[in-house]
């Protein structure tokens, strides 16, 4: 009698995998820019699964990637001249760093992908190269326990992969570190600028309307004629906190972001004041509001950094937010008074 078919271990005779190239074409550059400015997010996903780069065989390395298109693109770009497999796991289109923090790039997801893609029948070895930042969500010993695969944590930057592999899967201390250089900070600014636009418009709208206040009530022409300076104060504060603070992060030695932002706000608003004539009370009122905006916008940048801790940000918020609210409230009050006297 023929033995029953073991469906669990049936394997297809030939499977084909999508092959990707290491080269970036025009669309990839466009996508990279779009992602940064938060345009058309749906194009930023890669279908999870196994991909080939070059001509991999059962001995070739397996690199694990998030299904965020930019992560995947950067990985394949750096696997030039490799014959390797890329295991793209479903992180819901979010990059490794954030997905790992939220559990989307985690032990469970990785185990599931290994099972679902029959990785064990694709390669005969049992090693996986996981980006180091994935360690926030992936517990190497649990992967080993549950799948038999040994997780090797690769370098932080995909650009170091070739050297890492050549050195026998060893990263130098430098490769293990996450830095936060100027261009990295610059790249992160557009997303925030776009994210906060409605709140900026709301703040601008408030000073715009209040500019029209007068002892005799509300004057529409007064609003039109005197609202430029107030609006510029808010906008300057916004740019100081949102753009200048991140770009020139190390310039102001204060560690607290709200303080860095407040100082940049102060500097730029003093500069702005050189070009306008206004009563002192109005200048002070607007400076207070502008500084509050700058401080809050800078505090918000903690979310984009690679070195702020949860406990630290909580502590900073505890004392800085009351100050920001106070500055904004006193500023607005003085502004109203300046209109009525």
């Amino acid at each position: 009698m023929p033995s029953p078919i073991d469906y669990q271990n049936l394997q297809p005779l030939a499977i084909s995998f999508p092959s990707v190239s290491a080269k970036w074409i025009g669309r990839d550059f466009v996508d990279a820019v779009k992602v940064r400015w938060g345009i058309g997010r749906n194009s930023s996903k890669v279908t999870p699964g196994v991909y080939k780069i070059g001509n991999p065989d059962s001995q070739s390395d397996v690199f694990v990637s998030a299904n965020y298109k930019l992560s995947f693109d950067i990985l394949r770009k750096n696997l030039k001249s490799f014959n390797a497999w890329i295991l793209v796991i479903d992180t819901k289109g979010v990059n490794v760093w954030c997905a790992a923090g939220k559990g989307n790039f985690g032990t469970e997801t990785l185990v599931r992908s290994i099972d679902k893609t029959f990785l064990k029948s694709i390669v005969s070895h049992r090693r996986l190269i996981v980006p180091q930042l994935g360690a926030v969500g992936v517990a190497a010993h649990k992967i080993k326990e549950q799948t038999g695969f040994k997780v090797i944590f690769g370098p932080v930057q995909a650009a170091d992969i070739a050297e890492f592999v050549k050195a026998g899967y060893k990263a130098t201390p430098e490769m293990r570190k996450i830095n936060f250089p100027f261009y990295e900070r610059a790249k992160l600014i557009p997303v925030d600028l776009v994210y906060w636009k409605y709140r900026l418009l709301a703040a601008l709208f408030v000073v715009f309307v209040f500019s029209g206040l007068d002892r005799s009530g509300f004057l529409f022409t007064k609003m039109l004629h005197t609202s430029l300076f107030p609006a510029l104060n808010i906008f300057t504060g916004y740019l100081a906190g949102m753009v200048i603070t991140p770009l020139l992060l190390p310039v102001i030695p204060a560690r607290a972001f709200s303080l860095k932002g407040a100082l940049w706000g102060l500097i730029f608003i003093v500069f702005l004041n050189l070009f306008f004539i206004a009563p002192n009370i109005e200048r002070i009122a607007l400076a207070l509001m502008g500084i509050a905006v700058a401080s809050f916008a800078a505090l918000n940048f903690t979310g984009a950094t690679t070195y702020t801790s949860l406990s630290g940000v909580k502590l900073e918020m505890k004392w800085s937010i009351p100050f920001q609210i106070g500055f904004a409230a006193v500023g607005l009050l003085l502004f109203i008074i300046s209109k009525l006297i």
Partner: protein
Amino acid sequence: MQYLRNVVTLKLNGDLCTGCRLCAIVCPHAVFEIVNKKARIANIDNCMECGACALNCQFGAITVNSGVGCAAGILNGILNNTEPSCGCNATGENKTSCC
């Protein structure tokens, strides 16, 4: 660059440590040092509380109250009465740069 001093919750229990080095490998801020086959916290103020070391120490020698140091996320958490969440939602939309 370093953030606020004396505030992170990272703790290492040397008695449980076997010197496997994994914490030093996964930490992106070189917080750990391995001296005489034991991990040691060398730069605690560099720690960003990502939790990678604690998750990957299979001997349970490390504890840290981990999370994302993101003001917008913490605010969201307070306003919605949930855990801090920086708003990368199920559609993969990255609302702020923290994700």
